[in-house]
């Protein structure tokens, strides 16, 4: 399809009722999107953009309340979706979102940016290899589910289970801190009052008693 874009502005400096700046913005928008689709071939990119703008210019005089960018972006979306529909042989009616996603994924998996840029948005017939790559590219993040349910077996911790609930008692931490403080005081006292010698004396008394 040859683009028949009216590239020269009329006397008022407008094209299809929109200023040149507006069409420039529309051009950039469409070009950006095709660029995002990894269309790197400059002549092809330019040609595709002009094709979209041509359709947008046809619509523009009828839709005076909308910007050229909005119309061009819509046209771009429509052209791409229609093309996906043709290539993938899926009706676009009611499945635009699914089709768009599937189409983009097919482009990626068929390696359109690397191998088939020349086929992008081209009307059919397309090379069989390309069609096959597009239609048969499948995408699976996982094999078929084979659902089951693991169930933990309880660990019998015996009396430890009771101990683990000890901390839930009110003020138990505060009491523990006081007890620890008391223990420290006790140790200091023992250390400074010959505690060990006393203990050893008692032990020797005990040993003597056994003898």
């Amino acid at each position, binding site marked *: 399809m040859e683009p028949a874009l009216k590239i020269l502005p009329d006397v008022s400096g407008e094209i299809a009722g929109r200023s040149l700046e507006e069409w420039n913005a529309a051009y950039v928008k469409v070009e950006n999107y095709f660029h995002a689709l990894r269309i790197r071939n400059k002549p092809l990119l330019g040609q595709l953009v002009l094709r979209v703008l041509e359709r947008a210019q046809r619509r523009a005089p009828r839709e005076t309340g909308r910007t050229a960018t909005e119309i061009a972006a819509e046209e771009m979306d429509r052209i791409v979706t229609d093309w996906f529909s043709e290539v993938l042989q899926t009706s676009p009616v009611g499945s635009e979102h699914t089709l768009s996603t*599937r189409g*983009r994924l097919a482009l990626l998996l068929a390696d359109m940016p690397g191998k088939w840029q020349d086929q992008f948005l081209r009307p059919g017939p397309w090379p069989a290899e390309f069609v096959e790559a597009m239609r048969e590219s499948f995408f*699976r993040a996982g094999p078929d589910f084979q659902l089951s349910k*693991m169930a933990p077996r309880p*660990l019998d911790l015996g009396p430890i289970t009771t101990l683990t609930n000890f901390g839930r008692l009110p003020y138990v931490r505060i009491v523990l801190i006081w007890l620890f403080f008391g223990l420290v005081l006790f140790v200091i006292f023992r*250390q400074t009052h010959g505690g060990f010698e006393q203990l050893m004396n008692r032990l020797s008394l005990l040993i003597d008693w056994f003898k």
Partner: protein
Amino acid sequence: MADQPTITPLAIPRLRRGWRLFLFFTSAVVLTGLVSLLFADLLWRTGWSTSRTVLLVLFVILFLLTAIGCMHGVYGFFIRIFGTRRRITGLKPFKEQSIAGVSTAIIFPIYNEDSVRVLEGLRATYESLERTGQIEQFDFFILSDSTNPDRWVEEEARWCELVRDLDALGKIYYRRRLFNEERKSGNVRDFLNTWGKRYRYFVCCDADSVMRGETLVDLVKLMETHPTTGLIQTVPALVNAESLFGRIQQFANRLYAPVFISGLNYWALDFGNYWGHNAIIRTEPFMQFCDLPQLPGRKPFGGQILSHDFVEAALMLQANWEVWMAYDLEGSYEEAPQALIENAQRERRWCQGNLQHGLVLFAKGLRGVSRVHLILGIFGYVASPLWLAFLVTFDWIYCMQKFTGLSDITVESFNPYLHDLSGTQHAFLIFVICMIVIMLPKFLSLLDLARDWPRRAQFGGLLNATGGVIGETIFSTLHAPLLMLWHTRFVLTNIAGISVGWTTQKRTADGTDWLYAIQRHWGHTLIGVAWGGFTWWLDPGLFWWFTPVLAGMVFSIPLSVLTSRRPLGARAKMLGLFLTPEETRPPMELVSLRSRMKIHELTGGDCLKGSHHGLAKAVLDPYVNAIHVSLLREKELNPVYAEHFKRIGAGSEGVRELGEKLLAVGPEKLNHTERMAVMADQGVMVWLHQQAWLRPEEKLAPWWKAMIREFSHRDN
């Protein structure tokens, strides 16, 4: 569906194991007993006191742990000399075992990791497996738990790129959970609940794991040959370190681990352990017996079991399955932290998990050997506060001795051979014994290397390896006191239930940033200086004995920064220090991984810059958006995930409104949960893609305009 296995009697008679356990641990206990007797005698000679009783108890515990370590080295050394058939690879011939029709999943659970590194590791493993001609028997799964949306999108995009590169659609799968309940163990459980029954075995890898294809095939063959084995753990070699710290750790791992693990296998045999990754697991019994229950009580001990691996091995053993360590299977690799602080961060996580095992220890029905594994794990951390307590108690005794004016030696030794020794000489004798017990495994590892010519060459020759051991010993002497302080802090804060917040490490291209090192180590330095000053004031003679401990603390900041530097690591490599077999003769898997990582480093990837770049990519990039949406669609087919989608409100009007808000005001005005809800809604994501490209810029938030501009000018 995995075959229903038949449990047969254990391969190794109980009596033999009993003798092995008895011999091994008795050796450690006898050694500890004798040295403790000497130590008690020294304490007795200097006049007994309560603090000396405390010191003796601490000494016995600490020495017993050291002696157990030493015995691992000694037993392992002799086993390597005389050989043993009591190892999983030596029990039966397995190389000819067919694995046709045996399905094995290789899973990579990940959590906000660098997806480039994860997927390159997976690629290296995949390509290696492909070369064995057995790739058909294996499927790969990337099991993401990432909560960072940028990471999420990057993972998806890179996964798709990888499967296209390798033509591996239907061989390498990607799944991300919407809720990362119960962390890694929950992630693995989710995989098993969804696909587990398709696979007879699964190999659990870490984010940084790389495995040789032949090793994977061997693991499956071993499992097939030993139908009573539930789990085989490989011993991963540390690789790819570049910093000095990383290279030292890597060298120690490669040189000492073969001897140590041989020793471990001597007493553990088929009652081995699981380290959480680089291991093959029989799916059916794992699903049946190893799902982890919640522990009673509150955190830090109650609730979810954090270090799941030891417990899973214990449960497997409890159910009469064997767990082996295939320590002589090469071709299992992992990476280690590149700096002291990174290492401590990892230790902190592990510490909490290991302390929790204190409760599991009392679970009824566990094997005694499992309890030994758990105790050794716990004491790996608890030993630090005990060591600190030992040093402090010693200082206290010394201080008291000095200020009470008591003489050093009050009575003679009970041993006539020690009668003539002064107190200092007696102490020095014990010190020398301790040093021998600590150093002996290192020396034996070196001796083991000396008698193995090909391996010796892989370490750069005996001279270089000896230099490496000396360097490693100096470094670990400086590092040990820091670990002692860190572990003590982790243990105490965990017991107190205090969460220790660590900011993300600030790394320069070369390693740890000086300012960050000061923030993390100022306390260590202060303790070192104060302790050193106190010891000097107490007795300058004593000070010199403490210098190895104090030096690590005082110089912690430069030690931390300098050892994290890559140039220093490279310099040591040039000098032939700390060389490992994977450095001198890198296997193909690692060569491939390194070269690809280098390319990524040089090209800098293709990520958008700035905040929320993942979201921008998922919305704006027609392909990434298609991948993202397709993955969400596929996930909805699983009733469990469908329930999760409902929980976050996917498909609701509320999320659509959030999508509108996202376009109008940008992602900054949405909170994390709202952004994640939008990204998990396939309908909204398709709509956002369309709207972001259809709407004129005036109707989009400035952030979108900037992103579209950046996106349009990059070379995708």
